[in-house]
């Protein structure tokens, strides 16, 4: 009896395996086809950047990118409850737009010539600069001070390579999965500086755990014009988003969003950029 039971059970496992395989396929098909759904809008943001795009406990989203995207979506005719947020990591952004997985992306997306070959940009809506985050008492005042120092950045980011190439060829560079992992290394002294856009750094430095321990070096190593990425050739959406961004600045919503998100971080942001005015 026992053997028969076990055999039956194993047969069931095999059968289950086969049906479940089929189910797996169906399941993913469904989620794929729903991406073109009528009254929802999919927007790509970052999930792990305090002050810009952060998935908060409880599943809500907060940050400057999120506020800008919400405002723009509203101008496009979508209420906040019609927005479906999608995490678009840096390396995935072009692909997500090309494939039409998201309508637009507001995820610390700098406008560059290279990216403009693949996607179209609306904006810019914020001018940030590459900078260094260092310990409060560190004496790093210019980028060349970084020679012989230890630098942290995230995998696939260009900012660290820029520093190594242009300013401090002798700097030691380690790349981590996320900025929070760099911060923990910075705090314990395993690295001397963390480099990326000042807007991102400010958000991290303002977290309760790190408050008062770090400072921005204020170097303005580069200009990062944050734009809203749109599928290549979708000029209509670009124009609509540009109108929305202009309105956001003129009705002071932009200032409010800046104050709400960067205020606590004491981030001295640049004034609202003119649409289409890309600072090289």
């Amino acid at each position: 009896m026992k053997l028969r039971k076990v055999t039956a059970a194993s047969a069931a496992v095999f059968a289950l395996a086969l049906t479940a395989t089929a189910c797996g396929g169906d399941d993913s098909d469904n989620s794929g086809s729903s991406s073109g759904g009528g009254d929802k809008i999919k927007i790509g943001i970052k999930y792990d950047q305090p002050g810009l795009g952060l998935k908060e406990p409880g599943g809500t989203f907060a940050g400057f990118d999120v506020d800008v995207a919400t405002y723009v979506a509203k101008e496009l005719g979508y209420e906040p409850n019609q927005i479906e947020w999608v995490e678009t990591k840096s390396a995935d952004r072009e692909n997500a737009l090309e494939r039409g997985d998201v309508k637009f992306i507001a995820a610390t997306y700098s406008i560059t010539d290279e990216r403009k070959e693949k996607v179209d940009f609306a904006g810019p809506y914020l001018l940030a600069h590459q900078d260094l985050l260092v310990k409060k008492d560190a004496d790093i005042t210019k980028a060349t001070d970084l020679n012989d120092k230890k630098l942290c950045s995230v995998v696939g980011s260009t900012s660290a390579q820029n520093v190594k190439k242009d300013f401090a060829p002798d700097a030691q560079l380690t790349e981590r999965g996320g900025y929070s992992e760099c911060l923990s290394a910075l705090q314990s002294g395993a690295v001397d500086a963390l480099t990326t856009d000042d807007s991102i750094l400010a958000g991290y430095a303002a977290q309760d755990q790190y408050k008062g321990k770090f400072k921005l070096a204020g170097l303005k190593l580069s200009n990062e014009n944050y734009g809203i990425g749109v599928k290549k050739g979708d000029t209509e959406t670009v124009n609509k988003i540009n109108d929305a961004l202009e309105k956001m600045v003129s009705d002071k919503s932009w200032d409010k969003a800046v104050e709400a998100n960067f205020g606590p971080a004491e981030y001295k942001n640049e004034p609202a950029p003119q649409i289409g005015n890309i600072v090289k």
Partner: protein
Amino acid sequence: MTSVLYDAPGPKAKRRNLIFSVVFFVLLALLLWWVWQVMDDKGQLEWSLWKPFTTSEAWTTYLLPGLADTLKAAALAMVIALPLGAILGIARMSDHRWVRIPAAVVVEFFRAIPVLLLMLFANEFFARSTDVSSADRPLYAVVTGLVLYNASVLAEVVRAGILALPKGQSEAAQAIGLRKSQTMSSILLPQAVTVMLPAIVSQLVVIVKDTALGGVMLGFTELLNSRGTLAANYANVIPSFIVVAIIFIVLNFIVTSFASWLEGRLRRSKRSTGAVLGAEEVDDLNAAEVGGTRKTGGGVL
């Protein structure tokens, strides 16, 4: 103390063992004390870093969805790899050279390649040649990598499971005039499935562990990856790491225990042929040229 290596300790040995115990204990305690001191020194023991794990939000927003993705990828991979592995394993035992050799080549090839390489390749392949959405792509890539590798490992499990059966089974089947396919489908496979169940279950541990690769290298939002989003919120890199490691240990411990419970039960079962492919024997199967099943341990890396 039932080891064959030493007698029951006499008074002298007892004293020596006690000294060893004390020395070892002191060393261990010193190490733990040092770890504790450094953690405290670096502020890693502050309650504010650990407190998030006592709130339900940290779990429902980050860890549980991450765990769900880990389990989803592992389950999908197992469920697809199992029939595929069975087919490959049986094909490898075929009497026809043109079936046997290609199956062997496929199995040996995918076992020789790191699963990370398979995942990276699958990820790029899906991005360029298919229209899988970029949100689903990491899952597809992880499952593809895991299936390719584990199907070839399971193929060897199936082969060894069938070989582990007493020879009389197939001889008796032949004697009553069953054809080869009938022997396989109604005599050998049903018994072999029983034989190899523990090995299959413990292969799940390998699959669960390998999903973490996709989290770090492909951005698949499994447990280790959602830990990153969590740490971005609470700024608790190390505590979140420790919690995730514990979750993995508990999860895999449950699977391992289930596998050995199953093994013990099957070994005791009177109706079976007595042949059981233990969880620990899978490692042996990873060798290319195993004829039968030697009893060796080691588990699966």
